[in-house]
């Protein structure tokens, strides 16, 4: 088959799978997102057994396997637990201005962290353990990007 291989480039077919989905936030997720959208307020859920406060909220505590039935109001500042500064990105997934920070933030009153974006920081100005604050979007639509990003908290070290 060597002879035809010299003349013919191997066929590679371009494709794209674009499938619509409808993901349910559920009652717990909906209540959380509604509070974020309408009141700019973060809510967590508390495990009925171990008392751990989950943010983002969970319906079930994975440790105790008990229901997290109590809602808890959280602060909109928190501790940056770890972070990275993204220098390259996927063109379609996250069309965000580079570079941007990306970190795990534990909000005041919560026992767990969540993932969010970081902006408005100096080069080398982020560190695990620092306090960060939420910057909300003016137009909020009921998703996690109703918080545009976090930034180093003003006036607090």
């Amino acid at each position, binding site marked *: 088959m060597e002879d035809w291989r010299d003349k013919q480039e191997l066929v590679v077919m371009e494709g794209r799978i674009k499938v619509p989905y409808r993901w349910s936030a559920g009652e717990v997720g909906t209540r959380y997102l509604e509070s974020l959208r309408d009141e700019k307020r973060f809510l967590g859920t508390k495990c009925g057994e171990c008392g751990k406060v989950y943010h983002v909220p*969970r319906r079930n505590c994975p440790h105790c396997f008990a229901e997290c039935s109590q809602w808890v109001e959280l602060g909109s500042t928190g501790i940056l637990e770890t972070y*990275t500064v993204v220098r390259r990105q*996927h063109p379609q997934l996250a069309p965000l201005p580079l570079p941007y920070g*990306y970190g795990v933030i534990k909000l005041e009153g919560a026992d767990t962290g969540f993932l969010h974006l970081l902006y408005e920081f100096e080069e080398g100005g982020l560190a695990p353990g620092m306090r960060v604050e939420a910057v909300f979007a003016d137009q909020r639509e009921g998703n996690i990007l109703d918080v545009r990003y976090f930034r180093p908290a003003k006036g607090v070290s």
Partner: protein
Amino acid sequence: MTKQRSSRPDVNGKELINEAVRMALDDAGMTRKDIDAVVIGNMDHFEGINYVDTWSVDGSGALMKPIMKLTTGGTTGSTIAMAAYYHVASGLFDRVLAIGWEKNSESDTTGAIITAFDPFWDRPIFAGAVAGLALEATQYMHLTGATEEDAAYVAVRERKHALNNPYAHLHMNLTIEDVMKSPYLSWPVKMGDMCPRTDGACALVFASEDVAEDFPQKPAWFLGVANRHLWAYTSDPYVNQAIENGWWFPAMEWSAKELYDKVGITDPLEQIDVAELYLPYSFAGLRYMESLGFCGRGEGPALVRSGAFDMGGKCPVNPSGGVMSSNAIGATGLIRVAECVWQIQGRAGDRQVPEVKVALATGFGGCFWSDIMLLGADKPEKVRG
């Protein structure tokens, strides 16, 4: 296994699988007829093909045989090995073919990986697998004072080892300076710290103890396996289930503890002769040595730089060049096991470590799933889950 390459447009996925299967069957002196069951795996979204178990029967040899298909992220290949081991160790099957494969060249890796993340809480923020690992690297440096140069040492070591391995995808003779000068992808992780995207397949024959000694090659015995998993959201492995509970990397630390207790490993550095570890990026080669019990917390960089894990060291890590030299995701974990088998059989060519009695293989997934296995030259007294 097939030679690991950046792209294999000369074969489709099932033909790539077939190459590895033929090599495994030939090596074992078997034909398709001798196979009792097939365990196969890859990451569906990388090739955009679901039902790979049925789609691949032309290549896998699984036509009209029991098939189990597995997808567990980066651990896919190691999970395949564990499932094949369960098949034969249970006594239900005698000869099981384990196949891991991936054609990463067909995928948009980041676009595919994002489908593994929560649509509400992670995906809108998600910046790809590199940024996720960078969160771990930052935390590790913060806790221990480890440096980017320490990580670069690992990147250089792995690529040096790959020079001895004709199956490896990358053959690069790098210096620490080369790695340090490579561009940042997601601080502190640079291009030189990361694994490549690879096309490749690997197949292994698993045999029950009743038939294991009937093959032309002497068997490598499974001494035991363990695995743990904790991840629901991206924030979990770094914070929610880890540091505050006194664990740094609970999935790997727990599985290592369970496995060492079962097998009787009290000093991994002394008792393990070679390790093929799923180190997807350089910082893993520091932190995971601690999680796997080779040293205490924060002691990884010093032990790594002492050369203990270089060829000729106390416990060479990744003589094959590891994941940082070849990463055909669904095959990668299984290749770790295959390399351990060759080391035990004394068939590892230029990358052979002398007199391997005990070998450690691991799998790691971006969701911090941790599979770990010990293989040995000598038949264990009993089966250990």
